[in-house]
């Protein structure tokens, strides 16, 4: 027996909404219970998921807005299964983390947290393009309030406005493109307007339409990732969010953008994906090199993580646009890994800042490992995972990605290896400057407390678990991911065959 997907989807928002009307402690407890319920469901859903089954599992399909042909269609498949689990897990941990602190107007904070979780899960579960766009836009809204109300005085309004305008510009373009897709497909087939992924996939648009629609979608996803060169909101946005909020934002929201490429772009606009493959790969490469270089030069702990995220998302894009099954599997695995690494990294930034009298500049830190070996060890695990040390799950992810790219684009793969090296440099620099070296001028060295451990240890445990058994995070997803890439991969393959034939005509004897 399976639970209707609507229940785990709306549970966090519903619990948090009820919490608005309860006194402080009860509202926190309720919000956590809601997130916990959803997380428990995701574990069960993974166990219950049938590998290799075609089509959606646990699907819900109801007509929502009939005159506009919008379905309320949700479903699980290989593509979204683990990302949903990731989102539920990160939200739960960060919610617990947030609940340990005192907030002014705390009830609102938990309400927006719950709303954000439901919106993210909705974007991941949606099987209708209009519904996807709706959730994709909606998930930003709670962050407007979370950052705008709870961020630091002074700069937050400008920063949040910038973040919002950047991301919504992309989203609105995507809205127009999505509507155009539905309308064009319905005109092409003569059927009623429908936005269901399955209907759109069944009758691909002409190349010309695909191309401009692709660019609109890509713009939305690039901004959300963020990818070079549309990452302008990132430094301001990252500096102005409270850390529990930022951890969720960085760990989960950017993955929805990567997921969007696999869910929407490759299956529905395969011709355009092939057409723009090189452009996308070059941009991904730009993100990797630029992000890595910036992460190495900045000293603000948040920005180090921010820029390293740009680089990591570059790797993920690289995997997706290798247009191979391996590359895309690597991209999904790496999405999960990055989420699991960046969230504890922000937790550690918060702990470090507490020990350095609120400073988040790594020049003010140092030598913490001396008195806090446990914290240092946990940090070391996170860092090693981040730089994709062999033996970590990230290594497997990067390996799959580069393996995929090697198959299609040798030169680009070779350059991407520079990024792998740079990741080691900035990650280790971050670790050494904060944990080792001489004791920083502002630092008060203190071992991790039980409460602090309560947040950090589960995250690190999952990293270790996946390092030992990375198959867990990908095994059931493989067939689904392969299906998502298949149309584009096929077209790319045919084009390669044709162009190869043109460059190297087959010898007469073979004919």
């Amino acid at each position, binding site marked *: 027996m399976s639970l209707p997907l609507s229940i785990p989807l709306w549970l966090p928002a519903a619990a948090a909404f009820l919490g608005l009307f309860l006194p402080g402690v009860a509202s926190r407890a309720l919000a956590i219970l809601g997130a916990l319920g959803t997380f428990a469901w995701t574990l069960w859903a993974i166990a219950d998921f049938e590998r290799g089954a075609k089509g959606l599992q646990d699907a819900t399909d109801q007509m*929502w*807005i*009939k*005159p*506009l042909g919008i379905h309320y269609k949700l479903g699980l498949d290989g593509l979204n299964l683990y990302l949903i689990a990731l989102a539920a897990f990160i939200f739960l941990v960060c919610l617990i983390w947030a609940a340990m602190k005192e907030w002014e*107007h705390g009830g609102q904070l938990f309400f927006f947290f719950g709303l954000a979780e439901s919106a993210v899960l909705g974007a991941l579960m949606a099987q209708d393009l*209009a519904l996807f*766009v*709706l*959730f994709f*836009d*909606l998930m930003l*809204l709670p962050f*407007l*309030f979370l950052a*705008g*109300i709870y961020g630091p005085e002074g700069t*937050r*309004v400008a920063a*949040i*406005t910038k973040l*919002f*305008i950047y991301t*919504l*510009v992309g989203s*609105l*373009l995507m*809205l*127009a493109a999505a*509507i*155009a897709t*539905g*309308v*064009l497909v319905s*005109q092409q087939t003569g059927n009623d*307007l429908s936005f269901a992924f399955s209907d759109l996939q069944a009758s691909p648009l002409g190349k010309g339409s695909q191309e401009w629609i692709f660019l609109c979608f890509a713009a939305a996803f690039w901004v959300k990732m963020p990818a070079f060169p549309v990452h302008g909101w990132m430094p301001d946005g990252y500096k102005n969010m409270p850390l529990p909020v930022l951890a969720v934002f960085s760990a989960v929201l950017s993955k929805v953008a990567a997921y969007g490429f696999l869910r929407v772009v490759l299956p529905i606009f395969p011709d355009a994906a092939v057409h723009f493959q090189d452009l996308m790969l070059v941009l991904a490469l730009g993100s990797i090199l630029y992000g890595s270089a910036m992460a190495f030069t900045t000293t603000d702990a948040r920005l180090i993580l921010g820029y390293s995220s740009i680089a990591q998302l570059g790797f993920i894009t690289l995997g997706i646009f290798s247009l191979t099954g391996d590359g895309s599997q690597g991209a999904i695995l790496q999405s999960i890994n990055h989420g699991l690494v960046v969230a504890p990294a922000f937790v550690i930034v918060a702990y470090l800042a507490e020990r350095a009298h609120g400073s988040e500049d790594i020049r003010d830190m140092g030598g913490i490992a001396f008195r806090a070996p446990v914290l240092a060890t946990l940090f070391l695990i996170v860092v090693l995972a981040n730089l994709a040390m062999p033996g970590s799950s990230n290594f497997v992810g990067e390996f799959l990605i580069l393996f995929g790219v090697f198959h299609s684009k040798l030169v680009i793969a070779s350059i991407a290896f520079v990024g792998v090296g740079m990741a080691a440099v900035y990650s280790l620099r971050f670790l050494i400057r904060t944990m080792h070296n001489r004791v920083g001028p502002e630092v008060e060295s203190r071992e991790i407390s039980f409460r602090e451990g309560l947040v950090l240890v589960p995250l690190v445990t999952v990293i270790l678990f996946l390092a030992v058994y990375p198959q867990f995070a990908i095994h059931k997803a493989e067939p689904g991911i392969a299906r998502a890439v298949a149309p584009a991969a096929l077209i790319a393959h045919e084009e390669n065959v044709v162009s190869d034939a043109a460059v190297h005509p087959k010898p007469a004897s073979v004919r």
Partner: protein
Amino acid sequence: MLLAAVTKPTIDWAGVSPLIALLGGSIVVLLAGLLRGRFIREQIVPFLTIVAFATTIGLGIWQWDDAKDLFVAKGSQGALRSDDLTLMITFIVSVTGIGAVLLSWRALAPREAAHGEYFALMLTSAAGMVILAAAQNLVSVFLGLELLSVPLYVLCATEMRRERSLESGLKYLIIGSVGSATFLYGLAFIYGGTGATDFRGISQAISSDVAKDSLLLTGIGLTLVGLAFKASVAPFHQWTPDVYEGAPTPVTAWMAVATKAAAFGGALRIFDVALIDAHRDWAPALATLAAITIIVGNVGALSQSSLKRLLAWSSVAQAGYLLAGVVVASRVGVQATVFYLAVYLFMNLAAFAVIAARERETPYGDDIRAVNGLGTSRPLLAWPMTLAMLSLAGMPATAGFIGKFTLIDAAADGGYTWLGVVIVIGSMISLGYYLKVVAAMWMRPSAAADVATRDASGAPRLAGADPITDRADWEVTLVAVLCGAAILVFGVIPSPLLNLADSAGKALGLL
């Protein structure tokens, strides 16, 4: 002799009943306002006005789905038509009317102008709006337009002791008269070109090609200009910010929503019925006008710090969005326009209610500072305002999102995808100012402290009310809360409203 030639038209009293309720109501209210008791003037008169509007709605529901021509003389089509489009506009106007009466209940404007007159003028202009939307004859179109305009000129100037209010009334009178004159001139040309005053005759003349082209095109152009004045379509919008700002806030709310609904009702009738066969002539011009309006309105709003001016510019932009539905001249287009008008009602009424409330509570009038910190001090006002702003910007889960969706859908469906993209670009620009209001409410410290420090003379800077004698009472909050709830409800469950709008689209029977 002459009198004998005039045949008495057949009158369908049931079909005219909503109009009679408005006109009869205005007479009753006017007379009741002459009574001496203060209670009668200040409580009973507004109550009677609400009864009149409610009766209109009731009679409209009774007439729903019963399309017929009214005032049919022998050989003519009838001056007015009662169908679902007329009734939808009647509903929108009446609901706005009820909201505006509630906002005026304890406001300064009716007290200065005498209650009977104030509310009677409101009902009269409502009758004009209904006539404009129902007209299917050039003469009745003009009659409706004038009947709606003249009372509004007076209403704008009802705060007689405030210079800005008088200025606003005068400005509106002069510019409105220019608009009316142009409109009349255009109607005369259309008559000259086609030899008919009723819409069916015009349509037949155009389709059978007896229309004298240059005369007709001049007529269409001038008519368009006249309607553009009323609906504040660029470049005929310049009066809007000044008049909106100067008029008493309840009047602004009434004018902003109801006039727009009526003007677009009239535009739908003229362009999508009478001139439908000249579609290829006027559609590109109208589309260009729409695009200009969207850009001008949104850019103009960016720098405003007065909330009423901001909403005025935003209403210019919204007029541009609405035009998209008229341009495509399809059933989907009419549906989109009518749906958006209905949504527009809730968004603007909520916003104006909050402005009206804050005008009475703070010394800032309608300056944006008046809503600073509203999120913590007055959540019951802050939430509706937030929803209104997000909905106007087109954020998901609000009715505005669905409204934009339908408009873009209509534009794409009618081959005007570029106009859909312009709507999207306009929405992007609009984020800049809508978010400013949201940020002021939630992310800036409360203005409560400033209230105490009113300047020494005790004379607050005002845009339409006296905070000492006026109190923002429950009815204003009620309007805000109900409209906010409607924004949310129709954002999640839009189908009922979409179906109503669809039958309005069907009523035109053109498509």
